[in-house]
């Protein structure tokens, strides 16, 4: 019996010992783990599209600190301004916010949004992880990268929920600094400015995190009872 097993191992073809890259077959497409992993790619694409389409940033005014100098009436006067995903991502359209000068004038400023390279990079990264998810799904060789895919999806989701930070950074507003008139760069105050997530940021974050969860479940199903992809080849 022992001799027979040893003989079987010795007779195994060399190609099986060598891990193969990107093997797609119909049998694999029927496995729940593979289906879930592929579905995570669709969910990732959806999350990226939603991040570019849904409102991502809301600009409001609120009395949230004792240092607030804007009047409540002024804050109420300005309705919540939602920045579209497209304008948040690619810029080109105008948006408005209040500036308060050293002497107290509260001026409604209109500026053109800049290209948001930070969020753009994260969304490109999400697409890269989607491609990686595809490769991991059909390559046993890359299976060890499955955790990286999960992490990547979630990080990109968190990047979406951080949109207000990127938006303020690339458009250079919201940084309350000194208001000395000698300081040419920081003459205006931004206090009471309340820039936070619009629903699109939360939705796209949840969708991308959801992609990570779906991929994780798919991975768990694939690995349950051992990876049998080589057996199917």
């Amino acid at each position, binding site marked *: 019996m022992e001799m027979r097993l040893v003989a079987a191992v010795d007779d195994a073809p060399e190609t099986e010992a060598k891990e193969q890259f990107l093997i797609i077959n119909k049998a694999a497409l029927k496995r729940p783990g593979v289906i879930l992993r592929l579905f995570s790619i669709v969910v990732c694409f959806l999350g990226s599209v*939603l991040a570019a389409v849904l409102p991502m940033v809301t600009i409001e005014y609120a009395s949230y600190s004792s240092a607030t100098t804007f009047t409540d009436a002024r804050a109420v006067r*300005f309705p919540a301004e939602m920045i579209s*995903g497209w304008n948040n991502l690619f810029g080109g*359209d*105008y948006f408005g916010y209040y500036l308060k000068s050293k002497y107290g004038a509260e*001026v409604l400023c*209109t500026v053109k949004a800049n290209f948001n390279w930070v969020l753009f990079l994260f969304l490109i990264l999400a697409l890269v992880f989607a491609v990686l998810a595809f490769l991991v799904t059909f390559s046993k060789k890359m299976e060890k990268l499955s955790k990286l895919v999960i992490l990547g999806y979630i990080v990109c989701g968190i990047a979406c929920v951080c949109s207000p930070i990127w938006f303020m950074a690339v458009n250079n507003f919201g940084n309350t600094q000194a208001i000395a008139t000698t300081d*040419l760069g920081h003459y205006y105050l931004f206090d009471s400015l309340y820039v936070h997530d619009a629903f699109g940021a939360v939705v796209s974050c949840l969708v991308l995190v959801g992609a990570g969860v779906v991929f994780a479940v798919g991975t768990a199903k694939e690995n349950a009872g051992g990876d049998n992809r080589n057996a199917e080849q």
Partner: protein
Amino acid sequence: MRTYRKLALVFVLAPAVLLTGCTNDFSKSVTSLDDFLTVADAANLNIQSSVVKTDSGSSSVGGASSSTAASSSIEEDRPAHGAYLYANDNYSISNGSISYTGYSEVHGAETDYFLIDLTKKSGFVTTDSSLLTTYLNAAKNLIVLDYAALTSVYEDMKTYVGKTAADYDKMTHLKLAYTVAGDAAGYNLSTITVDGAIKVETNVYLTLDNIGGNWAFTNYSKRITTSETYEKNGKILTNYTYSVTEYMVTVVTAFSLLNLNLANYSIYIQGKTPADITWTNGTPLTEK
């Protein structure tokens, strides 16, 4: 197959619908005169106050020394001042050496009028309201002039509609944009002109508020920054000078009452001497 087509349609159309339907469209570039709101005249508004502030100064970047800002008036604009109107024709005015508050108080059938010099912290009380009218008219006049100045700025902005930087001599940048958000609106004109080593950046912000159904100018800020680059002792230096003019106008639906604490002021009775005054028990004021 039909199911797939429907799904594809949903995936394509849904984002498009969301793109157009879920965001505000407050801010735009001014493209025509229709983008300018109709603003009420000063006569149709209750303008409670108007305060004008100016500032200018300079700083040097790259050099060893830098000067600090010095408050001063700007030749192209009027000096800093403030005028406040309250209910019952009470007022306060601060313009150059003039700094007065006019205040009235009703006692039964009689009204006492106080005119207080805020600089000297003293004033008089009288029953003759005409003694307060000079500064009341001055305060009203200041407010009207300030509002007219803002109207002039607004009209001037309209001349930039449809123009580009190329239409102006030495201008390299021109932006005229506006935001209308709820009961607030703001127009922003930015220009940059370059003449050799001298660059002049001008930013004009004019903010309007809708008060009682009327659009009115409420805040204005104009900042001119001039930078001049030159070489000195082999070093490239840039000298910045700037000037700031700001108007803060308060428009209300009804004038509020002036709350004045007279405890900090010495008040005398206009046209009377202590000998003319007796207490209610008949004791003259000159006696204890």
